[in-house]
């Protein structure tokens, strides 16, 4: 089953739309779906041109394609458990919140809180991601617990905050404090970042670029050669300010002294 949702022009295109109903399972069930544009509840057909091709026996067989300007559409793929969502452009905040299965592929950029508290499945973002990619909600003790979040561009600040499981891969640069409060899981940053893993207690973070403002509370342990390219990395343990036993491996680093 293939569902193509093409966003219609809106009178107030910058007002956010909350669209957590857009997950593959709901389309297979043939439910009348609604979304919220500001404080008005709208039928999905008021907001999108909807085209459905074929039928599906299970949610796994459903692919939802979002076209047009959905850069202000929030919570797409929230609690998604199977199937695929393809977003041809940019997507708004909270895409893939709490998802447990399936795949979300974003061809443009993603706004903040991409894959917030993800539990499983895969998100592939071809562009950049905003702040808090793969993080937790305010005050939560655990962020992402499972699944894979891969960002081919750059990520904003606080990426993988409270990371508790699964894998976050950032191919570009990350902003400030990636992996802050990290307790488990794997974070890999291919580019540069500043002050990674503050207050971490567990998990592994690898930075293949340069770390600026390396925190003084990581204890240098050893060195290793990473991957088939045998990239030399310095291995730290920390954050000792927090009795941490996390592993931080970095290629180059400088302290803010």
């Amino acid at each position, binding site marked *: 089953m293939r569902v193509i949702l093409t966003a219609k022009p809106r009178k*107030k295109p*910058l*007002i*956010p739309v*909350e669209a957590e109903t857009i997950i593959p399972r709901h389309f297979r069930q043939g439910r009348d779906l609604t979304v*919220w*544009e*500001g*404080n*008005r509840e709208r039928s999905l057909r008021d907001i999108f041109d909807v085209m459905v091709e074929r039928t599906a026996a299970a949610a796994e067989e459903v692919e939802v394609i979002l076209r047009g300007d959905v850069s*202000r559409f929030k919570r797409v793929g929230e609690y998604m458990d199977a199937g695929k969502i393809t977003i041809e452009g940019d997507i708004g*905040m909270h895409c893939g919140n709490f998802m447990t299965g399936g795949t979300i592929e974003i061809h443009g950029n993603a706004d*903040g*809180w991409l894959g917030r508290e993800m539990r499983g499945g895969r998100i592939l973002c071809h562009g950049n991601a905003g*702040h*808090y990619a793969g993080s937790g*909600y*305010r*005050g939560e003790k655990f962020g992402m617990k499972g699944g894979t979040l891969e960002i081919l561009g750059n990520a904003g600040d606080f990426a993988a905050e409270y990371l508790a499981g699964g894998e976050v891969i950032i191919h570009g640069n990350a902003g*400030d*404090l990636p992996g*802050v409060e990290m307790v488990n899981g794997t974070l890999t940053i291919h580019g540069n970042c500043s*002050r990674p893993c*503050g*207050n971490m207690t567990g998990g592994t973070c690898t930075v293949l670029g340069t770390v600026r*403002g390396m*925190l*003084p*509370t*990581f*204890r*240098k342990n050893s060195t290793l050669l990473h991957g088939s390219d045998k990239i030399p990395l310095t291995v730290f343990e*920390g*954050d*000792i*300010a*927090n*009795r941490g036993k996390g592993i931080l491996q970095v290629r180059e680093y400088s*302290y*803010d*002294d």
Partner: protein
Amino acid sequence: MLLKDVVCPYCACLCDDLDVTVEGNRVTGVDNACDLGAHKFQAGNRLPGPVRPTEKGWDRVSREEAIGFTVDMLLSADRPLIYGWSTTSVEAQSLGIHIAEEIGGVVDATTSVCHGPSILAIQEVGHPGCTLGQVKNRADVVIYWGCNPIEAHPRHLSRYTMYSDGFFLENAFKERTLIVADIRPTESANVADEFVHLKRGGDYAVLSALRAIVRGKTGSIPSHVAGVSRAQLLRIGEVCKNAKYGAFFFGMGLTQTVGKYKNIRNAIELVDELNRHTKWTLTPMRGHFNVYGFNEVCTWVTGYPYAVDFSRGMAFYNPGETTAVDILARKECDACLVVASDPAAHFPRAAVEHLAEIPVVQIDPVVNATTAFCDLQIPVAVTGIDAEGTAYRMDGVPIRAKKILDLGYPADSEILREVYQQIRDRKKVREVKPV
């Protein structure tokens, strides 16, 4: 007439020992207040009544018209924002939150651009707080981090810390140790026993280093951390551990610098760590006189302290998404009601640009920078001068402010109650409970 023990409605110290002389509905003298507080009692710049801009200037409108315009604006918006609240009473704040719920809007306070990050950190790791009375009577070590009380809270040192004797400190000036941490020397740094001169943005690293030092893990600390020598960090660690009672105050120099709420979390965890050795507490240096009150009221009513989005009927909270600056800068709201604050003077350019594009109503006693962006301004009484009301001090103590003048202006709460009532009438809500 001399009025004793008047509460100052300027900053969140809420000094309640002012002597105010009133002659013929005019304040002619203010004793005990700092310059900032005294000036507020004697300030002018009040509008005579509601005004709307026209092509030629400003026209007066009646109170009924003004309230009708406000209600129309709020009810026709798809995503209205209600912002401000820090210089009015908790009674008015409560009404504002109820209005936001009725119209499916977003309600936020100046908290989001001052100590909002402190609240985020407190939600993560708790608040080892105390009243200012405890500090005055007990604290022998005081830290001011990222704040300059001599200029921003001028009576804080004389009422609660360096210059105030306490029950357990007979000669406070000699017995208290004052540590100031900042990125530049300030007036407060000049009177400190120890000045920690940080590099800009270095707070998180220095606080992390201090936590490790207090835990006895000094091995990995480099010779300098963000401009602070290892020797000074070790010395401060010892002073803090040896305190009988320590008080950690912090300001926007810590909350609004890079790292934001993680800086505060680190400060709280430093205080936690110090509590393994002795008694330490932490208090945010809140700015406006009742900004704390909004957090209290909003939490009672909605479960969240600020930045609450009622678009879908229930409360949703996510600073960074539902905060006023973010909503305005992303052009996500289509109407704005400003109450008791001045966003045009303090918000980033992108946010103010959007204010200029959407309908804005301001309820505020004075002409300010936001007036220029308004489609309507409704002048009201100043809470604590010509209106009474309750406010919360920076340590969370509620204090009732008196009405000392009657200039004929309605209180914010009166205007907001009428707005609320009309909204409910138009929505045909049958039962109206007093708020």
